[in-house]
C-alpha cells in the first residue's frame, strides 16, 4: 500500500480549475518533490492532502485514511509546514514548540531525538518571540513544530521560498537526515535545482502534472539535442539564436544560452558559422546534458503547443 494515494483529484474555484485530474502515489519513506511555479496548484493539492480543504472530485488517502472520511486520523499522523510562516509570532521559540507538542498530547522531550539537529541551530534564541526571528530561523522552528509529535508523513509547502541559497542547502541536508529516520516527506518547491535532491518528482504546471518520475529518468526523456552557447554579448546572442531556423528553443542560463535544436543534423560548426556571420566574438559551443530546468521548460512548451 502506498503511503499517499491520489486518484483523479480535481479542484475548481468558480470558473478556475486549480487542479485537473491529478493521479499520484507516494511510497513509504520516499522523499518526493512537487515542482512547479506559483499558481501551479501545489498548495491547493497540499491543502487537500492534509485535510484543510475538500477536493471537488476524486479521492485521496494518507496512510490508508481517506482525506474526507478520516480527517481526524490523518491530522494525528502528519506534520505540516505551510507556505507562509504561521506559528505564533508573540510566543517564544520554546513556547511555540511546547504548544505543538502538547496539543498532540506529548512533550518536547518525547521526540527530542527527531528535532535535536535542527533545534540546536535555534536553541540560543529560545526566549525570542517567533515573530522576531530571521527567515531561515523561522523555517527551522516551523520544521521542529511539524516534527515534535513524530509524524509518519511530513508535508512541507515551499519551505525554502525566499530563503538564501546557503540556508536552502542546509535545510535539504536536514530533510535527507529525516528521511533516514523513516519519515515519508512530500515537499513542494519552485526551485528546479532542489528537484534533483528528491527521489522522485512530479512537475506541475497550471493544475496539471506534466511528468512523474525520478529526476534521472526525466532528464533522460529530454528529446532535443542540447548545446550551451556563449559569446561576448549575451542578450544579442539570445536574439540571434531565436531567429536561427534550426532552433527549437533557446533560453538564458546564467552567462550562456541553452540551445535546443529541432534535429540532430545541425552541428556545432553550423551554429558557429551562423553566429560568426552575425558578428559574434569569443563564441563557445558545447554539447550538454539537459537539467531539470531544461526539461521543465520543454514540457511547458509542449503543453502550451
Amino acid at each position, binding site marked *: 500500500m502506498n503511503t499517499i494515494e491520489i486518484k483523479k483529484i480535481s479542484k475548481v474555484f468558480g470558473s478556475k480549475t486549480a487542479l485537473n485530474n491529478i493521479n499520484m502515489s507516494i511510497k513509504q519513506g520516499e522523499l518526493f518533490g512537487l515542482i512547479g511555479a506559483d499558481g501551479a496548484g501545489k498548495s491547493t493539492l497540499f491543502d487537500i492532502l492534509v485535510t484543510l480543504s475538500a477536493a471537488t472530485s476524486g479521492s485521496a488517502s494518507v496512510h490508508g485514511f481517506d482525506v474526507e472520511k478520516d480527517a481526524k486520523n490523518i491530522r494525528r499522523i502528519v506534520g505540516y509546514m505551510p507556505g507562509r510562516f504561521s506559528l505564533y509570532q508573540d510566543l517564544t521559540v520554546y513556547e511555540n514548540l511546547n504548544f505543538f507538542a502538547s496539543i498532540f498530547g506529548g512533550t518536547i522531550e518525547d521526540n527530542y531525538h527527531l528535532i535535536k539537529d535542527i533545534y540546536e541551530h535555534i536553541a540560543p534564541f529560545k526566549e525570542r518571540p517567533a515573530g522576531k526571528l530571521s527567515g531561515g530561523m523561522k523555517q527551522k522552528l516551523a520544521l521542529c513544530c511539524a516534527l515534535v509529535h513524530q509524524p509518519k508523513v511530513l508535508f512541507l509547502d515551499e519551505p525554502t521560498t525566499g530563503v538564501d541559497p546557503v*540556508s536552502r542547502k542546509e535545510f535539504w541536508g536536514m530533510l535527507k537526515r529525516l528521511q533516514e529516520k523513516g519519515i515519508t516527506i512530500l515537499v513542494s518547491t519552485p526551485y528546479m535545482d532542489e528537484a534533483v535532491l528528491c527521489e522522485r518528482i512530479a512537475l506541475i504546471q497550471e493544475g496539471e502534472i506534466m511528468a512523474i518520475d525520478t529526476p534521472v529518468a526525466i532528464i533522460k526523456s529530454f528529446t532535443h539535442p542540447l548545446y550551451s552557447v556563449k559569446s561576448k554579448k549575451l542578450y544579442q546572442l539570445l536574439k540571434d539564436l531565436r531567429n536561427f531556423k534550426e532552433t527549437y528553443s533557446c533560453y538564458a542560463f546564467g552567462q550562456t544560452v541553452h540551445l535546443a535544436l529541432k534535429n540532430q543534423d545541425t552541428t556545432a560548426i553550423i551554429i558557429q558559422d551562423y553566429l560568426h556571420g552575425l558578428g559574434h566574438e569569443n563564441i563557445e559551443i558545447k554539447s550538454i546534458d539537459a537539467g531539470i530546468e531544461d526539461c521543465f521548460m520543454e514540457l511547458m512548451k509542449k503543453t502550451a503547443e
Partner: protein
Amino acid sequence: MEASIKTENLTKCFGSFTAVNNITFKVDKGEIFGFLGANGAGKTTAMRMLCGLLHPTSGKASVAGFDVFTQREQIKKNIGYMSQKFSLYEDLTIKENINFFGTIYGLSNTKIKEKTEQLLIRLNLMEEANSLVASLPLGWKQKLSFSLALIHDPKIVFLDEPTGGVDPITRRQFWELIYETADSGTTVFVTTHYMDEAEYCNRVSIMVDGKIEAIDTPDNLKKLFDASTMDEVFYLLARGASTQE
C-alpha cells in the same frame, strides 16, 4: 562614467546593532547591478537607505545625483521600485493601476494615455485592459509591475527579489525586460536569491554581516574564488557569517 549610485562608509545602526557597516561602492549609469547577501546580512536595510526610505546613521551616499540625507523626496521621484511582496492593486483593473501609478508620479493625462497604450501593446494585455489585476497569473503581474515601476522614465530602478516563485520561462522573459531597460540607459539595481540571475548582472556585490565582502563581475568573482558558478561563490562567502541565522 557617470555614477548612478555612490556610497561612502554608509552605515545604519539600530541601537547597539550595526545592520549596515561602512559600505562603500558605486554603480554606473546603465549597469545591471546585483545586490546579494544572505538573509539578515543587511541588504534590505541598505536598499531602503538608497531608496530614500530610511535615514542613515552616518557616511555619505547619493542616488541619481541626490543626497540620501537631505534630498530623500527627490530620490523617490527619480527612482522606480518594484518588490515581490507588493506590486499592484489587485482589486483595480490593469488600466486603473496604470492610471494610478502614472498619476502619483505626476504624469500628465496625455502622457498617461500614451504610456497606457505602449504598455498594453508591449505586454500583450490589450484584451485584459479592463480586467482586475487579481485575474492575472503571477508572471504577468510581475511584468506589469516592472513596467509600472518605469512609467515615469526614472534613471534608476530598484528591484527587490522580483522573480521569486515564478516559473522558469516567465523568469527569463522578465530578465529580457531588464536587459532592454538597461540597454536604453536605465540603471538596474536588483536583489535576488537565484544565483543564475546573478550571472546576468554586469557586476554583483555580496553582503555578509553588514559589510560588502565582494564586489566585481561574476566572471572575476568566480576566478577569485576558484568557483564554476555564482552559487559556489555565494556559498563560500556567506556560510561563515555570524548573522546567517
